């Protein structure tokens, strides 16, 4: 029987699934309000801009990874940036995941306690989800990959089916004017969609597992498919929110996606208050994102400290993640954390990675000349 635990390789398509599943997580509930406030009727354009922008960032990461096909960024960063620079970059890389994880845990706890369990402390909800994600992240990559593939088919399709019931209240006129008056807001909104697409940085860790014979163009194509899928899903969410609520209403709601689904009344039935069903289908989506990111964090620590196993590092990170999530206990801190996470991620993607590429080209060119 095949050993699902040990995984030394995976296909480009599997990488695309992991990318899709890691990108799409809690942010489909947590970020629409801020985007709609910034980009207004042009939010759908911002989503496309974001998709293109972060695909470019991912492509740069693929190029960088392809230069060191058997190594992750933890191994080649010190060679590119020097010992201290390398450590700084690795810590920054880990911070990108850490900040996303604590923000997602905190936001998820807030939503679940407000809309489902109003008497349960958010800390308890966070703890329960953390325990579940830790159990998953403790497994080897093979098991986690199978979970991703399973949830990709099951969880996302059910989420989409529940979400699409909001078509009943959709009014196309609310989307007009389609072409935005405020172009600056749309472009700024595109950049701020990093919160939605965040998670693509995992390619820097997973590339060594992707079959060595896969060409860069095939990898880029598969990853592009993942981004197209994510962009389409985000667009459906944003377009439906605006179509049901209008821009002005969505701006005033902390979680407009939930209000959209709450207003659905299935005709001829007594069924309403579908936000509970949406939350139930959303939790597995959040779970697989968080489990993956926790695994990546543990992997980074494992490689940095040259351990044989990622489990001790993960168990060390769990209380830090819990404390970090619980400390974000009011909307102002949550907002600040969101902005900090976004800038840490953006600077890493568009600052550190291009610089690493340039430095590695320069170093390889220098080596070539010295050899010559």
């Amino acid at each position, binding site marked *: 029987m095949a050993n699902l635990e040990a995984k030394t390789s995976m296909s480009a398509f599997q990488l695309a699934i992991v990318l899709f599943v890691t990108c799409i997580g809690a942010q489909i509930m947590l970020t629409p309000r801020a985007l709609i406030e910034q980009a207004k009727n042009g939010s759908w354009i911002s989503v496309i801009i974001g998709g293109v922008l972060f695909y470019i960032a991912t492509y740069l990461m693929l190029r960088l990874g392809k230069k060191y096909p058997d190594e992750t960024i933890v191994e080649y960063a010190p060679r590119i940036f020097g010992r201290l620079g390398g450590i700084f970059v690795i810590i920054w890389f880990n911070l990108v995941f850490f900040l996303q994880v604590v923000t997602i845990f905190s936001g998820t706890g807030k939503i679940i306690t*407000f*809309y*489902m*369990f*109003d*008497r*349960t*402390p958010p800390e*308890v909800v966070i*703890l*329960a989800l953390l*325990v579940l994600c830790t159990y998953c992240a403790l497994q080897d990559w093979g098991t986690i990959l199978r979970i991703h593939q399973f949830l990709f088919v099951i969880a996302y399709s059910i989420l989409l089916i529940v979400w699409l019931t909001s078509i009943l209240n959709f009014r196309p*006129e609310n989307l*007009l*004017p389609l072409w935005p*008056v405020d172009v600056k807001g749309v472009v700024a909104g595109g950049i701020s969609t990093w919160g939605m697409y965040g998670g693509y940085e995992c390619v820097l860790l997973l590339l060594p597992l992707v079959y060595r014979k896969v060409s860069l163009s095939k990898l880029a194509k598969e990853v592009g498919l993942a981004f197209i899928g994510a962009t389409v899903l985000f667009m459906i969410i944003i377009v439906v929110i605006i179509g049901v*609520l*209008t821009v*002005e*209403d969505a*701006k*005033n709601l902390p979680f407009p996606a939930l*209000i959209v689904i*709450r*207003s659905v*009344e299935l005709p001829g039935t007594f069924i*309403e*208050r579908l936000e509970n069903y949406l939350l139930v289908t959303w939790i597995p989506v959040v779970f697989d994102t968080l489990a993956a990111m926790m695994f990546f964090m543990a992997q980074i620590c494992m490689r940095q400290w040259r351990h044989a196993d990622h489990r001790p590092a993960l168990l060390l990170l769990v209380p830090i993640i819990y404390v970090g999530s619980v400390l974000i206990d009011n909307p102002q801190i949550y907002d600040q954390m969101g902005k900090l996470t976004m800038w840490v991620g953006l600077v890493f993607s568009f600052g550190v990675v291009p610089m690493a590429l340039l430095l590695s080209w320069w170093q390889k060119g220098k080596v070539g000349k010295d050899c010559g």
Partner: protein
Amino acid sequence: MAKKKWISCLLIICTCIVTAGCWDMRELQDRNFVLAVAIDKADEVKEVETFVQPHGTKRYRVSLQILKFASGGEQREETNTFIKSNTGESIFEMVRDMLGQNSKSLWFEHIQVIVISDAVLKEVGLSEILDFFKRDAEMRSRIKIYVTSGKAQSIIEFTPPSKEPGGVYLANIIRLHNKNIHVAGARTDLGYTIQYFDNNSNVLLPRIEMADKVVKLSGSAVFKKDKFIGYADEYAVAGLKIMLGTEKSAVVTMDSPKTPGHQVIFELFRHDTRLTPHVEKGVIYYTVDITMYGNIGELQGDISLNDTLDPEYLRILEVAFAEEIKRNIYYAEKVFKKDMKVDPVSSFASKLKAHEPNTWEQVQDQWDELYPTIPLYVSVNVSIRNIGSHK
């Protein structure tokens, strides 16, 4: 090794106890289902039912209609709901204080309707009254909101002849608005009302009145933003619904052309209505193009003179109905635009914003002054498809 296993098991058990999900457990029979809320001006303040307020005055009376659970074998009572009431200023504070009058917690997840007295709305904006309902997570988006000129509490005390719970009965009346052209019921619930506030739009809510043992919905309460300005009668509401195309089925009456003094009624089944803004050389105007298809619903008069089998007579009726519908629309325009100076549910503003955004950017700040001067051109075509089972 065994010690580590024991510690791990203990940790797992402790985690399970904390995360088992019993925190929010509440049995159904331990809740009081609130079906309707009435908000009136506080008239008589009864010391027992109210409380000492640290801030504000005894401004409002909030009454809750609560579902009565009857166990099997009990004698069937007259009503299946009861009313609890309180006076104060903050609705949330009054609701919480009412727990002192109940043995079970109040649960709003099944609330069907909110009835507000216009005496309250004449003093304070609608958004202020509805803030508690829009903020609380228990509230449904589809709560119906009615305005009454009398006492709202009497409306929710009304016992329906069908013996269904009062709140459910009141909420179900508005579901028939598609067939009743005198009631503007499309998008008048809590979720849409909040949307209108957020969009800085005017609001239209159904009017409900009670006389003796009759409760009836007809006409609309008109709000400029969230300020109550008056009522629109049934004929104005009918014209508005036709203009905006929100009716699914309607009845249009007019005097018979061949036998004046006797009515002939057109039953609408299907329509295609387009309200379109136009901007030409800086001048804004609107056109309404309506095509209606329907049947002759009723004809009071000598059928030998009103021969509905005669195609020429049908053509005369079609033209006459079209004129009547135009008259209705222009009457609605007069009531809303000229008398009340209100763009109802900001429909004209939203059309301009959607189709002519650049013009809207220029005029949005002066829209309230500009709107009464904007002309409306109406064109109606009526097609009679059937005359009924008898001529």
